């Protein structure tokens, strides 16, 4: 389990977290998952947890510090600027997508509307990032 990459999901909606966790349980589980309920909690995890994520799945719309703001903070951080961030949103406006890429998001995914689509996206996104795309090595492993 320890060798699997850690994925951090930042999602404030409890229903969506439940569905994502359900989808994860039914998926091939190529990674370990840590849920943060908002950007503040995500920043706390990034600063303080000994185990570091290799990939972040970030909701666009969050209370307080929004998804774009968190993305900007990550890209400005010497410690975290390498972290791949996949943003997901129910808003498909081209201006939002353009802004996200300009600010340094690695990929932008439309938020699914039903459980079947969630499972499909979960499997496809994580299959790609775990199997076909190289992720940065976890910092905690590098230090050890």
């Amino acid at each position, binding site marked *: 389990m320890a060798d699997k990459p850690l994925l951090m999901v930042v999602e404030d909606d409890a229903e969506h977290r439940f569905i994502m966790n359900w989808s994860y349980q039914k998926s091939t589980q190529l990674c370990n998952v840590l849920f943060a309920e908002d950007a503040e909690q995500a920043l706390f995890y990034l600063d303080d947890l000994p185990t570091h994520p290799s990939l972040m799945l970030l909701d666009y719309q969050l209370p307080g510090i929004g998804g774009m703001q968190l993305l900007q903070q990550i890209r400005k951080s010497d410690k975290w600027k390498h972290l791949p961030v996949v943003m997901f949103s129910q808003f498909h406006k081209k201006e939002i997508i353009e802004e996200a890429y300009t600010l340094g998001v690695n990929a932008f995914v439309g938020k699914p509307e039903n459980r079947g689509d969630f499972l499909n996206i979960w499997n496809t996104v994580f299959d790609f990032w775990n199997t076909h795309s190289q992720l*940065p090595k976890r910092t905690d492993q590098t230090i050890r």
Partner: protein
Amino acid sequence: MPTYSKPLVILIVEDDEDDRELLQIAFNEGDYKGELFFANDGEHAWQLLNEGNVDPSLLLLDINMPRLNGMELLEKLKSTLQFKALPVIMFTTSSNEAMVRKAYELGANSYVVKPQNFQRLSEIWEQVYSYWTQMIQLPSRE
């Protein structure tokens, strides 16, 4: 599923002629939608982009190339407002950890290791193509 108002255009920056040919064959065999353009190295790609000869939705970028290498082109693209939003997939034989981390730090959107045989190349190409064109919302080219 994302929908695009313009046909998908992928710019492949690859100095190896055989690799360019194999990628074109894999693309043709897979009946993919869109158009492939090729640049022979980073300098050639930079010229094509700046002169407006190609307006890609996605860029596949080798690292080890003469004149301007992949990392140098990546840095130039991600520090130029006009091209900052263009998704760049590093596509290289190197899986060196420091290289992977450096690519992400410079703004690479993903990093895919180029396989050595054609069968595997076709499979990887299918995965990359379907993920980036069917699952991911790409920036508008308008």
